[in-house]
């Protein structure tokens, strides 16, 4: 097991590190909208902590959730009071942690990646899209009123996105309620 797992762990670790360093390097370049005042290792640490939080909060759900189809319709989670019960119905065949990862890789992994990508993408909107309305500061330009307008517009855009996200989430909740309906006794 150790020999089989070390390779994928190292490979995935390399991909994550490489892309985070790439994003951080881009952010330090003296380009309009980037030019972040933090040095590269600091940015990489900040993004690394963020992606750790995201991976733990979205990837984990599927990892823990995939065992739940066997007990109840619509999943819904195995109640805590029957944790430890012997599972009577389960998939047949060789099953180990690699299978759980395989299952996660089809949905949990891509979704987690999308989540981090969306955060990186939208967090740049304050400087990049806001930069259309004036030069944004960083290490190259002084804090003039021009850049303040740009950042104010960019921050407003972020707030609009946040409100949109709240609405989308509410629509999703209504969809799930209508589609799955109340819990059957």
């Amino acid at each position, binding site marked *: 097991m150790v020999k089989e797992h070390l390779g994928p762990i190292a490979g995935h670790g390399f991909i994550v590190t490489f892309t985070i360093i790439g994003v951080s390097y881009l952010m330090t370049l003296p380009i309009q909208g980037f030019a972040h005042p933090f040095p*590269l*290792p*600091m*940015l*990489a640490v900040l993004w690394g*902590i963020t992606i750790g939080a995201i991976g733990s909060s979205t990837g984990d759900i599927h990892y823990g959730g995939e065992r739940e189809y066997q007990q109840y319709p619509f999943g819904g989670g195995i109640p805590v009071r029957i944790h430890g019960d012997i599972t009577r119905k389960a998939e*047949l065949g*060789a099953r180990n942690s690699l299978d759980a990862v395989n299952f996660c890789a089809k949905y949990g992994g891509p979704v987690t990646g999308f989540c981090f990508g969306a955060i990186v993408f939208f967090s740049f909107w304050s400087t990049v899209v806001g930069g259309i309305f004036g030069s944004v500061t960083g290490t190259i330009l002084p804090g003039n009123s021009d850049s303040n307008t740009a950042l104010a517009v960019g921050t407003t855009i972020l707030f609009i996105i946040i409100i949109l996200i709240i609405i989308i989430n509410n629509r999703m909740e209504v969809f799930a309620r209508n589609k799955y309906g109340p819990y059957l006794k």
Partner: protein
Amino acid sequence: MSENGRGPNSVDKRKPLVLGIVGGLIGIYLTPINPIIGPLLAALGAVCGIVWGADAIARVASYGLGTGVPSIGYMSLAFSLVGALSGLSVAVYLGTSYTWIGPVLGVVLAMIVGAIVAGLGLTVLKMKIPILMRCTIELAGAAAISVLGFSAAIAGSYAMPNILHSVIIPGYIALFFILNTMAIQHPFNACLGPNENRTRTLKLAFSTAFIAMAITGVIAMPFSSAWYVIAIVGAIGWFVSITSFIQASKDEAALVKWTGWWPHEEGEDFDKEVKEIKEA
């Protein structure tokens, strides 16, 4: 549960403490003696600090903090890092003849903040962990020593101007925050459980500390002529300690045996059974 963790399987709590304080501070204070040996000693001092911290976190986290092992590691690294740099800064403020006071003051400031935060946890938040105070103070001191040691190893000095130039401005200080947190909290987080053996946990602590030292050596490349010494000694130390950790794990495991995949025939049997059920 004894005060020292888990009875017969724990080590004497004074040994890591002495190792951390004495070894760590000696390593940091010997930094300026030689441009090659000095940084190496500072990095080894940081290793001593990490081992001390890993033991302290193992003792406090055996009680169950409610939020997992890493949280207290993050917290103590956070205020220790600020405390350690503040100590160095005060030394600058006092003048060049008082540079020597910096590391000790940094460790003491970190410990004071640790005591205050632990006191708040016990009084305001009403946490019921009797050794929280002592262990948070130890953890703060260990974290401060580890940050100071690695910083001094890169800068080649424990004076604030050098550390500002070669550790803070390149952003390595944020890296040390997360690197030392991982090195301190990982050993117990990985080894905890009913069969936790403190000696084995500390072997893992040595290996995480040495690998952190090896990384420090590599990132010291632009600033220190001793980078390859630190990296190589760290890598050798890591190899020795991880080997001894794996050996200890094998010795204590009940049985490690690869059973192989099950025979191929089972699948055919299953197909036969399905056919029989369908026919019936």
